């Protein structure tokens, strides 16, 4: 199982490297090599590290440990085919962790990043509607049951495309350089990550790698179904490249617009779910 953790962290970082490369090529820049994010994680591991004087030491360190821990747990939940409610509860916890990163450092940039992570909690609202819609179709929120349902009826991606689109937007909101990436906006230096450097930043990189892997793997499992592991990796890469295209051609929204658009998506999804509930036996 530990091998899955290491693989997921490294492959997730590789996917983030591909993400940066694709965005750069679309914007006619050479871009960094695809393994750049892996090199970043290694580089930060060997940098001098301390805790800033203005930081709340315990929280400053604990949030990094908790960040890696919750996404490690999420990976095991997905691989074991357990409840997607647990997975999405972890997704919500990540929001608290982001807030903790920002508030623990004592830096105004980190604090603004932390406050924005609370604002961007709007991206979680489509998630609840997504869960409701999945349950309406499959009658279960256990990942094993959802993949079994797709084995009989075909991929949920084709059965309920609006649900897949809503989940796709949720994943998009977690991608760096995307339209909803207000927590790491450049006017805040690096947002909530600004004051986590050295080994702490390496821990953040591992968290990002695991998070990217888990969200994309969960997307494939929920909307495509049970596929061989190598095929899942190929589909995850394809989904990621499509996300990169969206990020490359979309400007970052202001916090207000970001919340408004995500609220609209939630409204549309609610209408869809109510219609489903009305017509389904």
């Amino acid at each position: 199982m530990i091998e899955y953790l290491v693989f997921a962290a490294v492959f997730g970082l590789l996917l983030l490297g591909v993400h940066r490369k694709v965005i750069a090529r679309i914007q006619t820049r050479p871009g960094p090599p695809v393994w750049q994010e892996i090199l970043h994680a290694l580089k930060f591991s060997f940098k001098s590290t301390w805790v800033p004087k203005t930081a709340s030491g315990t929280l400053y360190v604990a949030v990094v440990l908790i960040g890696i821990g919750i996404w490690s747990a999420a990976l095991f939940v997905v691989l074991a085919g357990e409840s997607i409610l647990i997975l999405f509860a972890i997704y919500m916890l990540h929001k608290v962790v982001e807030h903790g990163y920002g508030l623990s450092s004592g830096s105004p940039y980190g604090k603004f990043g932390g406050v924005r992570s609370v604002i961007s909690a709007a991206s979680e609202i489509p998630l609840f509607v997504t869960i409701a819609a999945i349950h309406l179709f499959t009658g279960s929120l256990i990942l094993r049951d959802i993949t079994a349902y797709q084995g009989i009826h075909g991929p949920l991606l084709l059965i309920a495309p609006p649900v897949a689109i809503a989940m796709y937007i949720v994943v998009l909101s977690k991608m760096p350089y995307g339209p909803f990436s207000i927590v790491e906006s450049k006017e805040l230096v690096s947002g909530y990550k600004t004051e986590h450097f050295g080994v702490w930043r390496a821990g953040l990189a591992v968290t990002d790698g695991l998070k990217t892997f888990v969200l994309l793997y969960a997307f494939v499992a929920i909307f495509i179904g049970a596929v061989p592991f190598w095929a899942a990796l190929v589909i995850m890469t394809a989904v990621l490249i499509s996300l990169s295209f969206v990020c490359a051609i979309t400007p970052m929204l202001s916090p207000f617009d970001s919340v408004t658009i995500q609220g609209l998506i939630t409204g549309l999804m609610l209408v869809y779910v109510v219609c489903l509930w009305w017509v389904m036996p």
Partner: protein
Amino acid sequence: MIMKRKTIAYGLAASAIGIVVAWAALAAAIIPPFAAAMVFVIAFPVLVLFLGLWWRAPGGEGDIPFIGY
């Protein structure tokens, strides 16, 4: 706040031993997968951070964070 190298070495050793023991116990079917997963969830973050801290344990003095250009 600077941790002593000895403390970091103990933390690193404890997390590494925890992972190896849980992995071996799982392979020998002594513990169920969820128990091994719990150990990994706790020990893996500690291993990641303490490995880097052990490498660069001397570190430096804390400073005032970057507050703008």
